[in-house]
């Protein structure tokens, strides 16, 4: 008996334990993919069955819709479906209008179409994720509905209604299946990302406190995290259960995190500068306080793993903040007596930054710790009141160029169509416009479109096999389903991995477009091959267009983004009243996000954009602080030098270079002198004067930094010129 049980135990530990681990791994990693593919298959077949049942013209449109909106998480499906419906409806309405106006005059008709597509592409550049998708759809639906209707204008209404019915069927099937069958909620993803971000940030604090490394390389990652979390949240709010209730709180937390990370960056820059200069006491004292702060953020040398632990960290931070003043006075006592003024200022600036950092960190931790806990409705309302206003910032020229690119693709393909009387012209124009507008917002459209082309070839091959070797044997619904399922499963599997997702999408679209049946079998090899060639030509055309008007990877567009960032600093200096800190952060973030530089930190030009972003955040904050502090001051002795500081900094950002930098530093020196002399008249209270001095000193030391992009960019400019 004993031996038996021992042996059993051995078997258990040898065989069962690894199996359990393997099972858990499978359930976490492979099962969602498996479930997704099954969901996709069921939803497409359901859409096909319903369309066939209602005898709609093109069941494939419904199936294609399913394939396009289907995603891993239910919330994403809802969001995408909603915007797809919106975009299609608007597109159909516009195509009816244009057909009613211009159907006899093909040139005018195509011209109008090109303009509309241009407007929509530009719109898609202005908005983010699913909203931008709605714009793209409103544009290319015109091709799908409007172009076939030119051949039979009397059928326009019928085509439009059928198209929208098919799309609605597809959307309903996709949302139903993804909501009912193994639903996977964005809420969980959101919470996990949030936890991971908190952990990563405190880990980074821990490691930089130990080694004293620079944050230049990690900070962009955190900013990118903010974007991705915002995207997740935008979809999650479409799910009903919790996400919507928490969305306000969530936005606030995101904002607070951005503040924490930029404050930390400012402090870290100061540390680095002190490291380079020879001011060991100041640096050591600041470091010791910083390490205490870091200790308050960690638990036994590691980061918090859960919200409960975060709550404890919040208490530790609170304690740290209570003792902060004492610690500072202790540290101050250790400063050597005969210390130079600027060193003392260095120390004070460091303390000020640490104070701000700890304050913001405390607020952020508190919000994070209480995020999932139940709060009363009253709290939620108070959160709603301080809601975050979203601002958008973009470069009009880049947006306009994207619009022109979409319009040009249409115009050139349409010209070929008219001149050569091309049989598959409509097909070519549709695919060309779809590809040249859909990927306009991708971080690197060229690569995406190359993958898309590979997928189109795959889809054509699959379509050929399916149309001419399987469908001809298919009788009845189930045989039909059997004939098309392998391709759906294959393409669906491809879309689950980010690297092959464009391939999968293209396989789907091309396969579905060529699917040769409506209520009867209707594939024709000659049309099939003609259409397949047209597809490839169209994709090539849009590849050419992306190459000609390259907005995301060219150096020129990067320089424009950098210039727009600098323009923001000038705005900070010159605008009356000055823009708020949050607004500055949001605008800067929006610009860099659109440029996609954060996803491609490897390249030099993108590095430059990020350098400018960091420089902007650093100086911009200080300037805004200064302007807030001198508000209401009338004394010309102070106001004039301060204004000259703002002007000279604005000038420096308008044309960066050593001479302008020296001018700015000179202006700052004069302002500091003026504040010092002002001491006698006592128009300023002590705290305010100190604040002004510290911020001026901070800007001054940031400008003095010889590694700063303000100095190094001069060479960049020369290279380009």
């Amino acid at each position, binding site marked *: 008996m004993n031996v038996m049980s021992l042996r059993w135990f051995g078997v258990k530990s040898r065989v069962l334990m690894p199996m359990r681990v393997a099972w858990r791994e499978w359930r976490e990693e492979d099962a969602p993919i498996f479930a997704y593919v099954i969901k996709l298959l069921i939803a497409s077949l359901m859409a096909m069955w319903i369309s066939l049942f209602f005898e709609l013209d093109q069941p494939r449109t419904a199936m294609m819709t399913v394939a396009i909106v289907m995603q891993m998480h239910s919330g994403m499906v809802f969001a995408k479906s909603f915007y797809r419906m919106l975009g299609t409806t608007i597109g159909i309405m516009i195509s009816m209008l244009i057909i009613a106006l211009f159907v006899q005059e093909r040139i005018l008709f195509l011209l109008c179409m090109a303009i509309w597509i241009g407007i929509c592409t530009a719109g898609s550049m202005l908005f983010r994720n699913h909203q931008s998708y709605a714009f793209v759809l409103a544009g290319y639906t015109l091709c799908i509905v409007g172009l076939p209707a030119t051949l039979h204008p009397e059928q326009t209404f019928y085509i439009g209604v059928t198209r929208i019915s098919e799309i609605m069927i597809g959307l309903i099937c996709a949302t*139903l299946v993804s909501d*009912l069958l193994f639903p996977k909620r964005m809420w969980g993803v959101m919470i996990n990302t949030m936890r991971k971000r908190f952990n990563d940030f405190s880990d980074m604090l821990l490691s930089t406190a130990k080694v004293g490394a620079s944050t230049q390389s990690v900070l962009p990652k955190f900013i990118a995290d903010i974007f991705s979390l915002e995207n997740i949240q935008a979809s999650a709010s479409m799910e009903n259960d919790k996400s919507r209730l928490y969305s306000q709180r969530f936005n606030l937390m995101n904002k607070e995190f951005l503040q924490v990370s930029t404050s930390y960056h400012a402090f870290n820059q100061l540390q680095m500068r002190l490291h380079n200069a020879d001011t060991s006491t100041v640096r050591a004292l600041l470091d010791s306080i910083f390490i205490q702060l870091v200790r308050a953020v960690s638990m036994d040398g590691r980061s918090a793993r859960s919200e409960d632990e975060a709550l404890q960290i919040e208490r530790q931070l609170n304690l740290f903040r209570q003792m902060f003043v004492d610690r500072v006075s202790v540290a101050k006592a250790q400063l050597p007596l005969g210390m130079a003024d600027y060193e003392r200022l260095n120390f004070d600036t460091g303390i000020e930054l640490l104070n701000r950092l700890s304050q913001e960190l405390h607020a952020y931790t508190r919000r994070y710790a209480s995020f999932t806990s139940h709060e009363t409705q009253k709290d939620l309302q108070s959160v709603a009141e301080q809601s975050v206003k979203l601002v958008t910032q973009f470069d009009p020229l880049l947006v306009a160029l994207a619009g022109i690119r979409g319009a040009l693709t249409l115009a050139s393909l349409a010209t070929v169509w008219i001149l050569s009387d091309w049989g598959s012209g409509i097909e070519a124009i549709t695919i060309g416009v779809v590809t040249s507008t859909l990927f306009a917002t991708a971080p690197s459209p060229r690569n995406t479109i190359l993958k898309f082309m590979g997928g189109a070839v795959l889809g054509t091959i699959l379509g050929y096999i399916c149309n001419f070797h399987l469908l001809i044997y298919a009788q009845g619904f189930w045989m039909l389903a059997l004939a098309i399922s392998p391709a759906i499963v294959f393409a669906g599997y491809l879309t689950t991995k980010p690297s092959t997702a464009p391939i999968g999408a293209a396989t789907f679209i091309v396969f579905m477009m060529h699917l040769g049946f409506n209520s009867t079998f209707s594939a024709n090899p000659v049309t099939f091959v003609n259409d397949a060639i047209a597809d490839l030509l169209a994709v090539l055309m849009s590849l050419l267009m992306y190459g000609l008007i390259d907005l995301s990877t060219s150096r020129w567009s990067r320089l424009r983004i950098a210039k727009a960032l600098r323009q923001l600093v000038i705005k900070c200096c010159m605008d009356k009243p000055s823009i708020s800190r949050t607004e500055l952060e949001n605008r800067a973030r929006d610009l860099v996000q659109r440029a996609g530089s954060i996803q491609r930190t490897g390249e030099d030009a993108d590095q430059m954009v990020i350098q400018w972003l960091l420089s902007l955040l650093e100086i911009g904050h200080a300037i805004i602080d200064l302007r807030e502090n001198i508000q209401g001051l009338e004394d010309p002795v102070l106001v004039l030098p301060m204004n000259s500081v703002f002007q000279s900094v604005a000038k420096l950002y308008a044309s960066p270079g050593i001479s302008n930098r020296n001018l700015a530093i000179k202006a700052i020196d004069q302002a500091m002198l003026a504040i010092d002399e002002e001491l006698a008249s006592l128009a300023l209270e002590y705290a305010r004067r100190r604040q002004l001095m510290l911020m001026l000193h901070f800007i001054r030391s940031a400008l003095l930094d010889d590694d700063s992009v303000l100095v190094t960019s001069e060479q960049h400019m020369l290279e380009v010129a």
Partner: protein
Amino acid sequence: MPREVAVFDALVPTLLFAFVLAGLLTLIIDWLLARFRIYPHIWYPALLRLSIFICMFAGIGLWIY
């Protein structure tokens, strides 16, 4: 009740409006359920939502026909 309604001279089935109306009603109920935190007590919220929608749609449909 008429089975078809003329919208800009295009005949649209009344059921389409019933569908939209049922959808709106479901959204309102759904908002209420979320607002008063009833969802945590429900085993499968998505199924409940679907059922509410079907009840609404069927109810309005029966009223029309």
